[in-house]
């Protein structure tokens, strides 16, 4: 326990909060985006916004991989799962993600063989145990999980497992950040950079944000004090006019990332020309597909997919929430038609989605209701 107190210490939090307040220029408003859903979770759980001055605003970014899966891709996966000889596998997070024709849970109830796994290697084992079935792994996630998918494909190739394939939906964080920076909707002063993604890609890929857009980014850990310290570091850089990338989470994130993991991704995967992100639309070169050498393991080449683009439900404003333009409670259906039990949008599905995190930690205060109704 003594270790943990270091990151939770209420006295330290108060001290940092005071330093944060003293670093703010009077009358200036600071808007920082926390890119990663894990950070969103910490911010709401510990009520960190209550520790920040009113002119420091945290907005939530697109870094929840479940939240950015467009409905059409869920439909495609269910289409594959409906083939009689297929066992579809994916992470438990996918279970309730709504497609245009329902979720995995609905498809399972209708008879499809869909199994949740902890690791893509578990999906590979299912393939080995069921040689007369075709086993497909629906791969989702940013650079944190892409190396695992790539390693699993290398293993399948090495062991000559022919009834295993991957429906690849891996996305990359840098193009998403760039799309947000280029979007006219939002003016940001800096970023709290993702922790685990950075353990893979390192800190260098963020340098364009400082160089080309003149904004600082601090890679942050997941404890409350990590986030407060990162805000403090961002304000310090703004005060002295230094747009630069810094690493607050060096205890996990090496500056150069995990080179083995990046090499494995490069070996097995290629950039897609474009990919649709829920809420953000099509972003070019923002996602990964299997390289031609591994076409035999590519579900998109093995199965014929409908590939129909499905528009989000009209009432759903996940797109605005994912871009940080709307805060969760400002969405028209938040907490009424859309709840974690009956999600309309993906931000309410994943526990790291901004809406679910906000809903679950009951931070829907009266002020916020007033703010929302005024808007």
């Amino acid at each position, binding site marked *: *326990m003594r*270790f*943990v107190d*270091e*990151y939770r210490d209420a006295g330290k939090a108060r001290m940092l909060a005071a330093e944060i307040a003293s670093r703010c220029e009077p009358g200036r408003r600071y808007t920082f985006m926390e890119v990663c*859903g*894990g950070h969103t*979770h910490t911010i709401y*759980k510990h009520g960190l916004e209550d520790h920040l001055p009113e002119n420091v605003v945290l907005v939530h970014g697109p870094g*929840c*991989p*479940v939240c950015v899966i467009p409905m059409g891709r869920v439909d495609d996966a269910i289409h594959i799962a409906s083939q009689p000889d297929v066992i579809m596998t994916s*992470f*438990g*997070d996918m279970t309730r993600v709504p497609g245009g024709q329902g979720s995995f849970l609905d498809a399972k109830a209708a008879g499809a063989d869909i199994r*949740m*796994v*902890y*690791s*893509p*290697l*578990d999906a590979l*084992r299912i393939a080995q145990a069921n040689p007369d079935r075709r086993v497909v792994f629906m791969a*989702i*996630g940013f650079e*944190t*999980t892409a*190396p*695992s998918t790539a*390693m699993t494909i290398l293993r399948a190739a090495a062991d000559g497992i022919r009834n295993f394939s991957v429906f690849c939906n891996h996305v990359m964080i840098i193009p998403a950040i760039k799309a947000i920076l280029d979007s006219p909707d939002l003016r940001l002063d800096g970023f709290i950079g993702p922790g*685990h993604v950075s*353990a*893979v890609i390192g800190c260098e890929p963020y340098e364009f944000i400082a160089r080309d857009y003149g904004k600082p980014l601090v890679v942050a850990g*997941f*404890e409350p004090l990590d986030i407060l310290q990162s805000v403090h570091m961002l304000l310090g850089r703004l005060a002295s006019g230094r747009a630069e990338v810094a690493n607050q989470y060096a*205890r*996990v*994130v*090496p500056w150069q990332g*995990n*080179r*083995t*993991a990046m090499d*494995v991704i490069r070996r097995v995967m290629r950039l897609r020309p474009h990919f649709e992100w829920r809420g953000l639309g099509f972003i070019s070169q923002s996602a990964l597909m299997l390289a031609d050498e591994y076409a035999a393991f590519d579900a998109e080449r093995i199965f014929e997919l409908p590939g129909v683009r499905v528009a989000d439900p009209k009432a759903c404003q996940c797109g605005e929430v994912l871009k940080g333009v709307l805060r969760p409670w400002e969405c028209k259906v938040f907490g009424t038609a859309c709840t974690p039990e009956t999600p309309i949008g993906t931000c309410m599905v994943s*526990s*790291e989605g901004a809406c679910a995190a906000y809903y679950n930690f009951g931070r829907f205060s009266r002020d916020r209701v007033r703010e929302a109704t005024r808007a």
Partner: protein
Amino acid sequence: MCLGIPGELVGTDEEHADLALVDVSGVRRRINVGLLADEDLKAGDWVLVHVGFALSKISESEAQAVLDYLEGLGQAYDDELDALRQSDIS
């Protein structure tokens, strides 16, 4: 899926150099350590495990801090541990 879970290395797999046995909150499972091939891992080391793969080597104090954070998450961590319990990587 997004949770990085700290595991303590308790053994290696003699047949597969890229597999190792880890202890995660009392759950012992095989994981893949191929992404940390440069780290020269040994028993007693701590790693952050994502979907069955060790992604970063961490200190014991960081491992304890992360475990405490995860335990505070409640359901999301319980679900992840349940999924890990059913995992059978070989």
